[in-house]
């Protein structure tokens, strides 16, 4: 439990380690798994009736310019010039430079590298299991820079409270500002509830309350990384007595005329009822994949591990369509970006790669699609040793069903003056969250005709399905 805050590993050592991992080391099992992908997939009964979407939310606004980095000489030089002290040297990117499966012509002939701390994700990309969606963000309708600068908000409405953490988190999750209480994951879940024996296990968060997994009908069920939490005293009176345990059960679950009290009782009833069912099913799951391949705590890996175990328990629980939410905090890198962002990238890399391997182990990699989301992207311009709140960002989609190893959308110029940004390199999104979500929802099984009920603004965008899955 002792948390010692010191400069643990030098940047150089970290880089060296990351470079090594890219080729061998702890990433080797992943490479092996990828090589045997075909067999594993074949072993899966075709038409196995299961689908899951997993949202990995990076709270605080991920610094996309240091996640997917211009690598060709010309654009890298532009990036260096604008980013100053928070940039990667080109040679630091050699090991994670990306080779798309099929050559792609991007804006200004850009080539990209992943952050040096994403060696495993590079393997997934080049194995065709990870797609990169470029410059996606909150939009109500497509907007050009001139329309953004203009004042015709009736024709070109903008999402509420751009650049504000809580509001843009909410927009990503629920397509509205703070206070919205139905998320698009939950709305997808509404379509799927009837498929599951336990309808409460349709929308699940391992990261605390999140509007993403709250639907019109479907509730968000919370789980902890260790499984469902049992109220111990109800089953084991300890220093109390059987009568006291019984009274506890009754007190915390009895209905009340006071709405707040009643809601607490409802949550307690759900907690108790589901705990037995869920933990019993989880106990039968054996998962070999290690989620701890890098030294240090990784809360995202812990959350994805319980998601993997729940997927492992899908037959026992009668789960056929599930939406999961996990998150990692701390991406608001106004300062000390280089060090802190690198640490978080390592966690993302470890967690997402382990989760993918776990789906391969369970033979469900084609049935599980994972995607990233975040408050917003950040400024390309630096503020000394960090970056500021932006708008559009780059995101990852991972899974066996993903048409990976390539980029989707339009690469932005590496610029703080071009028309695809709105100042300081804040990207004006060229793809909407609605399109990103529609593509995932379609794969999950939502019919085209129902898409507008989940994503009310989807009709404003041409090409609603982006093709990455």
């Amino acid at each position, binding site marked *: *439990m*002792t*948390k*010692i*805050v*010191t400069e643990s590993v030098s940047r150089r050592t970290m880089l060296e380690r990351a470079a090594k991992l890219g080729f061998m080391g702890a990433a080797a099992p992943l490479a092996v798994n990828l090589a045997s992908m075909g067999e594993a997939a074949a072993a899966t009964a075709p038409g196995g009736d299961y689908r899951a979407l997993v949202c990995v939310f990076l*709270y*605080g606004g991920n610094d996309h310019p240091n996640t997917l980095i211009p690598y060709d000489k010309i654009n890298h030089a532009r990036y260096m010039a*604008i980013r*100053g002290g928070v940039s990667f040297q080109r040679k630091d990117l050699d090991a994670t430079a990306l080779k798309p499966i099929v050559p792609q012509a991007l804006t200004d002939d850009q080539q990209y590298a992943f952050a040096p701390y994403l060696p495993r994700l590079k393997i997934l990309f080049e194995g065709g299991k990870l797609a990169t969606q470029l410059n996606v963000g909150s939009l109500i309708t497509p907007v050009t820079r001139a329309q953004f600068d203009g004042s015709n908000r009736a024709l070109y409405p903008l999402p509420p409270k751009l*650049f504000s953490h809580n509001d843009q988190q909410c927009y990503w999750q629920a397509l509205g500002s*703070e*206070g919205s*209480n*139905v998320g698009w994951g*939950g709305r997808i879940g509404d379509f799927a509830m009837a498929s599951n024996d336990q309808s409460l296990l349709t929308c699940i968060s391992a990261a*605390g*309350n999140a*509007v993403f997994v*709250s639907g019109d009908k479907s*509730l*968000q069920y*919370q*789980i902890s990384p*260790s499984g469902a*939490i*049992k*109220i*111990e*005293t109800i089953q084991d009176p300890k220093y109390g*007595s059987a009568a*006291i345990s*019984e009274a*506890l059960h*009754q*007190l*915390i679950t009895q209905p009340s005329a*006071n*709405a*707040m*009290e*009643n*809601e*607490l*009782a409802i*949550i307690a009833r759900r*907690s108790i009822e589901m705990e037995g069912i869920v933990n019993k099913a989880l106990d039968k799951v054996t998962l070999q994949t290690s989620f701890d391949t890098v030294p240090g705590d990784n809360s995202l890996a812990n959350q994805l591990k319980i998601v993997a175990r729940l997927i492992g328990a899908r037959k026992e629980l009668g789960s056929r369509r599930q939406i999961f939410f996990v998150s990692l905090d*701390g991406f*608001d890198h*106004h*300062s000390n970006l280089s060090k802190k962002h690198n640490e978080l990238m390592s966690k993302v890399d470890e967690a997402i790669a382990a989760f993918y391997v776990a789906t391969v182990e369970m033979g469900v990699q084609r049935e599980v699609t994972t995607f990233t989301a975040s408050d917003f992207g950040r400024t390309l*311009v*630096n*503020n*000394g040793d*960090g970056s*500021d709140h932006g708008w559009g960002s780059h995101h990852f989609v991972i899974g066996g069903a993903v048409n990976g190893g390539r980029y989707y959308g339009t690469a932005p110029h590496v610029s*703080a003056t071009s028309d695809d940004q709105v*100042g*300081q390199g804040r990207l004006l999104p060229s793809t909407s969250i609605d399109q990103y979500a529609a593509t995932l929802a379609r794969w999950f099984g939502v019919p085209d005709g129902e898409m507008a009920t989940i994503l009310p603004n989807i009709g404003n965008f041409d090409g609603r399905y982006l093709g990455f899955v």
Partner: protein
Amino acid sequence: MIKQAAKPTTLTAISEAEAARFLLRAQFGTSEGEIAAVRAQGYAAWLEAQFNSPRGQKGADWLDAHGHNAVTAEARYFWPQAGDYMIWNQLLAQPDEFRQRCAFSLSQFTVISLNPIDGYWPPYIMAAWWNVLLDEAFGNFRSLLERVTLNAGMGMYLNTKGNLKEDAKTGREPDENYAREVMQLFSIGLYELNPDGTEKKGPDGKPIETYVQSDVTNLARVFTGYDHDMSRVQYKKVAWQNFPVITPEFTSDPMKLDPGNHSKLAVTFLGTTIPANTPAPDSLRIALDRLFNHPNVGPFFGRQMIQRMVTSNPSPAYVKRVAAAFADNGEGVRGDLKAVWRAVLLDPEALAAADPKDALHGKLREPVQRFVSWARTLGLKSESGNCEIFATSGQEGLGQSPLRSPSVFNFFRPGYVPPHTAIAKAGKQAPEFQIANETSIAGYINFLSWAIRWGYKDMKPGYEAVLPIAHDPPAVVAWLNLHLAANQLSPASCSLIATALASKNVTPDTPRDAKLDMLASACLLVLSAPEYLVQK
């Protein structure tokens, strides 16, 4: 001198339950003496007495006294956990309990968090931060705003520390973090408000934004040029590391300006222009005055203080009265926080009896409040005085840890609406429900069941007030219901609990340990019951 905000009251006018209800809002716990004092003095006079009562031990002094200033090869000067011990000691043990409660409310409006405060002396950084909140709890909001802005910990948390002016050559721009959050969270909020806290609407029927991105970018220039003030710091060479250990004065001194790093550009924000080349201290004064005098502050801040202490859904009229007290304390002073606390706690809406027909009355007590309330009321004592309570926010813990908000947006948002609830259907808010779910409800009860029986490290519960009546379950329940819940547990629940406790067969001759088993069980039942959890 100070106007009475409520009519003087007499002993007979305030019942025991009413006094307990008032105390459970104004501070954490209750004692028989405090209930008697409130009944004797009346609410307003009791508040005045608290305003004039002595301060407790300062956090930094407590850290010193417990050896947390030691410079050893263990390098504890980098460790955060004594910061947790410090704040728990303040909340659990310092005598200025009303001031502590006010500071706790402020700490959820202007937020910094021990996670992540790193580098040298995190515990002292948090102690200095807490001290600002305690100092200003009975001071003025304008002064609070300035001290918050220049606080060393806030400088780290929202990046005013080391914030540099623009540099055309490298393209570097000032950091916007503090400029944004000081508006969005610490003063005016996102939308123009009426004095009663409701949103103003524009001609298009939509809320009116208080600021846009250019206001943030401009205001950011005001906060450039500051860094920790190292002028009193001493640098000490040590054998175990190749850089010096520094002394912690920088943690409590306001940040210092380096004019060379301060932007000289003009600043235009919220309709005010600070001319180019204005000296930094004048820029700061003008900017903070502009924020402080914005008509939003009273309703924006006031409503949240009501939510922290009294109810999640105050009426607009209640908010308006608190905002009016913020605008003018009766003597022409704006921002007098004593006037705010009086207005929050003495408002007729707060003091009126809970309407049993109002299904949405009250607020969910937050976990820290529950635990501190129990500890202060039943007596959690440490022999060593060490108070070694570490972060308690985990799912196997209390579910909340003071000064460890997950972000500057606090543990929960003032406008949080729990989906799929009668609360949402009624269009009401319930901030604390943001951290209530299947996991946290179970984790809280598990945490309690251990802590209330066995304590926490060397802190042990005494139960002195109820040990003598442990053989009488109905009396125990009645005592707990009054002191922890202001008699808000129903007779049926009290009877259910008393009947269950009778199963322990405690008699006057029962050994103390067995009595403690029964008393801890009693507390577990009370503190887990929704009728307790919702403070009405």
